[in-house]
C-alpha cells in the first residue's frame, strides 16, 4: 500500500487520490480546513485536480482557540 505522511504520521492510501477524495475519506468538512502538500498550500479551487500520491507530505489544519 502506498503511504503518505499525514499531519506527521504515516497513513496508507489505496491509490493516488485527489485532495477532495482524501478529505472525504477522512470525513473532514472542506470549508473549514486548509491543506498543504509538500510544503505548498493547495488552493481550494484545486482540491479536485491536486493529486496526493506515494511519499507526499500532507498537512491538514483548522482553526482552534488561541490568543
Amino acid at each position, binding site marked *: 500500500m502506498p503511504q503518505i505522511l499525514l499531519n506527521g504520521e504515516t*497513513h496508507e492510501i489505496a491509490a493516488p487520490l485527489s485532495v477532495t477524495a482524501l478529505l472525504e475519506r477522512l470525513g473532514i468538512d472542506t470549508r*473549514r480546513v*486548509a491543506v498543504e502538500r509538500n510544503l505548498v498550500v493547495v488552493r481550494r479551487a484545486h482540491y479536485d485536480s491536486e493529486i496526493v500520491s506515494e511519499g507526499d507530505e500532507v*498537512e491538514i489544519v*483548522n482553526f482552534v482557540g488561541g*490568543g
Partner: protein
Amino acid sequence: MDPLVIAGRSFQSRLIVGTGKYPSNPVMVQAHDASGAEMVTVAVRRVNISDRSRESLLDYIDISRYTLLPNTAGCYTADEAVRTARLAREAGLSHWVKLEVIGDEKTLFPDNEALLEATRVLVKEGFVVLPYTTDDPVVCRKLEDAGAAAVMPLGAPIGSGLGIQNTNNIRIIREFSHVPVIVDAGVGTASDASLAMELGADAVLMNTAIAGAREPVTMARAMRLAVEAGRLAYTAGRIPRRMYANASSPVEGLVGR
C-alpha cells in the same frame, strides 16, 4: 469613540480578544459579546485525524460579526510562521495575520530578527501583517518600515497578567509610529487595559485576562469599559502631575479671615 483604523478598515471597538482557554465555548460566546470586540484571534493547528468528534471552534464564532485574526502562535522560525500564515489565509479566506515568531519557550518573547524577515515575506505576498513584538521602539520602527499594518508590542509576557511593564516604551512607540499601536499580551485586569490606552495605545489585544478570570463574561465587560475609559482619558488629555497640592476651591472669601 473615534474608530480604530487598520489597513483602511474601521473598527468601533478598540479591544481585540482571543478564543483560547475559555472554560467552555458557550462562555466564550458570551464573553465575546460582553467585550464588544469586533475582531477575535484564532490559532492554526493540525486537524485531529483519528478523532473527528471534537467540535469546531467556528461553530461558536459568528463570522458575519467578528473579523477573524489568525495567529502564528507557537512558530519558532520565520519559515514556520510564513507557512502557517499561508494556511490560515486559505482556511479563513482572509489575508490578515497576527504574526508571532517566538524566540524563547519560557518567556515566549518574540525573535525580532525572524519576525522582521517573516513580515517582509508576508507583506510582499499581500498580507495585512500585525506583528507581535517586544516593547522596543527601534524594532517597531523597523517593522513599520517593513510594511506592517500595525505594531503589537507586549505589555508583559503572554499570559503573565503582570500589566504594562515599561510604560515609557509604550509611550515612545506611540510617538514613533505612523501605524496603529496595539498592546498585545500581559494585561491582567481592567486597570492594565486602561493604562495601555491612556499611554496612547490605539487598541489592546488580550486573551488570558478574560478567559482565565473567575467570571470571564464579567471581566470581558470590565475590559470593554476599561478600554473605552482609557481611550477617552487619552483623548481628553490628562492634567500634568504636580509635586504639591493645588486647591480646587477658591482661596479668597474664606469665613472669618
